[in-house]
């Protein structure tokens, strides 16, 4: 009888007896992944409530519930949590940790203790971030972008937030590092790069972004601290500093960061589509390489956030030109996914529904991203609700939706139980409708000139904000519904078996579900492609005791 990670686990320090301490000190990648999930969703709900509060305030022009200053703090809190605490660590920390080592047949990540330390660094970062809520002058009101000189001159509590962002960044860097080394060193024998599941590719590309882009924002925040507290003049015009330099440094990180969010999400999509199409993925190599090229090109395009900043016009042109090239590999991925569905046998289970829904929403998010990368058009749309709608479509309708898809997909793997399909589907439809109703009107409002970060607005825009509000209400209902369905599934669901979806990748070939400590009984030898189906059934079959192929 093998033990699951709920029974016993490796610990960073000593061999504690109490279950609680075993969880706190665990270095088991699956447990760490779950703990990340728990912390993250707690914060997600805080941020979501902030989002909802903003929608309430914006229901009508004039002041409704909160004043301008509070509103500014609200979107800062919302943005900071959503970006730094929720979505950047997001999929890598949850599924990268709990699923990726299983997918490559490893027993754990390369540096399990570092992994543990990262988790706690992350938690500490979250606490420091929130601590500024009780700072002497209230929570920061800078927006998540911390633009200088505002962030240097406001008297609200910015320092803890900068430090927190630095800590969270550090945790993210080291997590990425850990994954890169894991993928290089711990793949099962025979599994070449082009035999890895596509989710692993996503995590790998993400790892590089985490590693090479995050330090830049780290140092930028440190420079801001140096400036604010030690009086050096880098961004402060009074000493000859240029605020635009801050924008450069900030976006050198924060643009790649958006691909850091989406690439693992695309990975999830690439897992779900073939599994529920019962068919090998179309153009495996192009999908894999497009992840790498999105990551690569993604480093070169940060300037599209600076089209109205006062940057040189020639630089605007160069950045605009480069940005268009991100859309090409992204497009290739989408066409490959759709082509996978051709001649397939499509099972519309909940994860597949989420994946297909995301196709719609993310394509809207991506295409509107292309709109605002046309310089002239962005000069009009920059910092309007068009941009806000774009990034909610990309982040919420892309990343978060795919995270939900992944949650439904790997739910049986991680809990050993199954949720109620019918209710999960209803939750999906509510979310989907609510989401579009919430954000689509904002494209129109933005195009008509509704600026973002406005706590009060001209009555011309009221109708859009009202539609949007009702969308938010539907969305609320859907979200809560979804979490209730999952919770019920976890507590009272039917046992799912190890491979309920008839999937092919290694994480489904375990001898028990939830997976045992140290994962696979034996390391398999991988001489097959990740998505080999024949007549709708996985080609490769294992004897789960010895992990020998029996097909």
């Amino acid at each position, binding site marked *: 009888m093998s033990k699951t990670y709920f029974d016993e686990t490796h610990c960073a320090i000593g061999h504690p007896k109490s279950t609680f301490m075993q969880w706190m000190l665990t270095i088991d990648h699956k447990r760490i992944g779950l703990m990340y999930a728990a912390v993250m969703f707690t914060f997600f709900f805080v941020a979501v409530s902030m989002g909802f509060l903003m929608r309430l305030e914006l229901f009508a022009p004039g002041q409704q519930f909160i004043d*301008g200053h509070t509103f500014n703090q609200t979107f800062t809190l919302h943005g900071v949590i959503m970006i730094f605490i929720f979505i950047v660590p997001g999929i890598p920390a949850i599924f990268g940790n709990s699923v990726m080592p299983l997918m490559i047949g490893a027993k754990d990540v390369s540096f399990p203790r570092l992994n543990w330390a990262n988790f706690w660094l992350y938690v500490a970062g979250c606490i420091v971030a929130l601590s500024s809520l009780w700072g002497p002058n209230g929570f920061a009101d800078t927006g998540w972008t911390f633009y200088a000189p505002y962030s240097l001159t406001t008297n609200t509590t910015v320092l803890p937030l900068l430090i927190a962002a630095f800590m969270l960044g550090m945790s993210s860097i080291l997590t990425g590092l850990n994954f890169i080394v894991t993928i290089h060193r711990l793949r099962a024998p025979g599994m070449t790069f082009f035999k890895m599941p596509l989710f692993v590719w996503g995590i790998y590309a993400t790892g590089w972004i985490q590693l090479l882009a995050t330090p830049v924002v780290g140092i930028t925040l440190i420079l801001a601290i140096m400036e604010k507290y030690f009086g050096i003049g880098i961004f402060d015009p009074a000493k000859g500093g240029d605020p635009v330099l801050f924008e450069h440094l900030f976006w050198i990180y924060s643009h790649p960061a958006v691909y850091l969010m989406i690439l693992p999400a695309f990975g999830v999509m690439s897992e779900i589509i073939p599994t529920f199409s019962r068919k090998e993925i179309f153009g495996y190599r192009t999908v894999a390489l497009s992840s790498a090229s999105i990551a690569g090109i993604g480093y070169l395009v940060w300037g599209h956030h600076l089209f*109205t900043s006062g940057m040189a*016009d020639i630089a605007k042109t160069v950045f605009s030109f480069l940005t268009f090239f991100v859309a090409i590999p992204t497009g290739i991925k989408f066409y490959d996914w*759709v082509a996978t569905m051709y001649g397939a046998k499509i099972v519309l289970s909940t994860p597949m529904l989420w994946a297909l829904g995301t196709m719609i929403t993310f394509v809207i998010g991506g295409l509107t991203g292309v709109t605002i990368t046309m310089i*002239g058009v962005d*000069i009009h749309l920059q*910092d309007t609700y068009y941009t806000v709608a774009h990034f909610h479509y990309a982040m919420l309708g892309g990343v978060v939706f795919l995270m939900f898809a992944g949650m439904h997909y790997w739910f049986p793997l991680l809990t050993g139980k199954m949720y109620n399909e019918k209710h999960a589907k209803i939750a999906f439809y509510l979310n989907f409708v609510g989401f579009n109703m919430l954000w689509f009107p904002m494209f129109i409002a933005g195009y008509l000139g509704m600026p973002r970060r*406005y706590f009060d607005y001209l009555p011309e825009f009221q109708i859009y904000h009202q539609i949007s509000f009702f969308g938010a209400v539907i969305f609320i209902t859907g979200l809560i519904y979804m979490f209730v369905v999952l919770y019920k599934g976890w507590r009272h669901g039917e046992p799912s078996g190890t491979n309920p979806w008839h999937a092919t990748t290694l994480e489904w070939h375990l001898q028990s579900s939830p997976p045992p400590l140290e994962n696979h009984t034996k390391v398999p030898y991988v001489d097959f492609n990740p998505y080999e189906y024949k007549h709708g059934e996985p080609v490769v079959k294992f004897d789960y005791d010895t992990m020998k192929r029996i097909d």
Partner: protein
Amino acid sequence: MSNRLQGFDTMATISATDVDQAFWINFWISIILFLSVIGPMVYFAWKYRADKVKDEDISDVTHNTVLEILWTLIPTSMLMVLFYFGYSSMKVIRTMPAESESIVVHVEGSKWKWRYEYPANANGYVHKLGGAYTKPVIDKNGKVIKEGTMGKSALYVPAGTNIILKMTAPVGDVLHSFFIPAFRMKEDVVPGRTTKQWFNTDKVGEYDVECAEYCGTDHSYMYSRLVVMPKDKYEAWFNSKEDTPKGNYLTSGDAVLQRHGCKSCHAITTDKVLVGPSLKTRRLTSEQVLNVINHGQDKLGYAMGAMPAGMATGADAKAIAAYVASGMKGNQPASFAACSSCHGADGKGQSGTAPSLVSYDATLLSHVLKHGKEGMIGTMPKFPYVSEEEASAIAEYLQSIK
């Protein structure tokens, strides 16, 4: 209420037309691309749904080089089209005209107001305008008691002239962004730097200005107005020492004519025939003019053909009608024509019919207009259709004639 900002649809500048063109090209290309992904997706999801496909029939294609090349190259070429339009629409906005051929207004954005400084006028006087937008007053329950106003914070510029905005923020202040939605243009205002943008518009009118870069607590009240006035009116004001131009140029008949583009076909001050007949020589009643505006007309046999219908509607149409019918009298607001029959051409009263109207303020005036008045001399009829704006224009005029 309209869902558009003041002047949003007027396409008043080249940047507005260029950007909108680029936007709509992008829009249609996006629709095509969207359908190219979502169309097949929905179709496949329906056609190959699980209960319709037998396991043996599942295809095992994993490659198709031709397709893959196609869906790389076609979108790429579309992207290049988009890049071109994005670039070209920027090119025009960002290529500054020579300062010698333009009016350079210094714009300073600070928390949370816009200030404008003009070059010295003929008398060496420098106009400095601007100030904060007055916030709406809100009672305890969050109800708006008093709407906010723009005060003197408007930027006045002449039509048909290059205007360069030379913008900066004081050192020690923060980033702002001068955003004119109707012109589809904005540029950040950066402390320590000078940034510029420019425009040139023929369309007389008022346009909203917003601050589009987050700048703190009252970011959402950092509005201003851009008022584009007829050139001569602008000159008159500019060379005076008046704080702000008198008269409400938005609703004066002349401005309304200009905004709706009547002047491109009709001469106003001369007898010249442009495309249509000169309006000066024609003597029509206001109803007749209104009729022509609303329905067009094709009786006179001009080469261009018909006078287009529906160029102006509602209050504007009426204002124009009144103005034209009254023979385009100078600075008077068009709507005053309705009053002069009783109150005299100059508003100073006609003994026996109606009193002098000198120095009435807007509130009283609009009250009388709405409800009429019965008194010792006779009855003042109601003018309920006179709009709020027109009433205030009249009031302003009345105050100016003392």
